[in-house]
């Protein structure tokens, strides 16, 4: 094991193969990977791409906090979380979460926890782009309850 968690905000392509060496452990028998990808439709509209706006400093802190919370719930688990910053066309990887655990149940549960918390708490915003050249910022979760990072 190298680190218990590793979080990144990337402006280059997110690569699945970069995650595994960061979290693999001889003590672990399971790795669960979630990959978020830009899809070509949303609420009946054709989507050509998404721009991800990110408050980088806050986002790194929130991602780290979420990993720490998950590790407390599923002890001994390792995390690699990368979120994209910038424009991605359809098919681009927006987020990658990889969780290594002694057993598969913990890796599944912890991975699900991390993505659900990211959606509610990470300071990231999506701007959808459409074929006619227009775009719109998507609604989301208000941060009035805080970031939950301390």
């Amino acid at each position, binding site marked *: 094991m190298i680190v218990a968690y590793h979080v990144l905000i990337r402006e280059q392509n997110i690569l699945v193969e970069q995650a595994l060496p960061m979290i693999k452990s001889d003590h672990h028998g399971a790795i669960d990977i979630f990959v978020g990808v830009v899809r070509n439709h949303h609420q009946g509209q054709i989507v050509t791409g998404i721009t991800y706006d990110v408050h980088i400093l*806050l986002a790194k802190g929130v991602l780290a906090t979420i990993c720490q919370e998950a590790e407390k719930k599923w002890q001994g688990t390792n995390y690699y979380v990368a979120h994209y910053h910038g424009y991605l066309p359809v098919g681009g990887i927006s*987020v990658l979460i990889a969780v290594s655990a002694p057993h598969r149940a913990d890796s599944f549960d912890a991975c699900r926890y991390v993505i659900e918390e990211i959606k509610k708490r990470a300071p990231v915003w999506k701007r959808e782009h459409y074929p006619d050249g227009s775009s719109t910022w998507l609604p*989301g979760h*208000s*941060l009035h309850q805080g970031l939950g990072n301390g």
Partner: protein
Amino acid sequence: MIITIQTYGAFRKFGTMIELDIPSGVTIGMIKQKLLLRLGSAEQELVRVSVLASSTEILADDVLYQDGQKLAILPPVCGG
């Protein structure tokens, strides 16, 4: 004193920064009210559901603004 607020998400339409002229000793809530006056009633709901943050944390409305503190306005989030 002139302060700058970094914009994100839906606030990007106002540029990367919004400048406000505020007196010393104001709270974050007062800065938010000043921001609302600056942006106009059409943005009332967006400002209401958004929060002001420093470089490390969200700031409650009753917190005093510290001179030189960097601020950002964060609309509702939708990462992933």
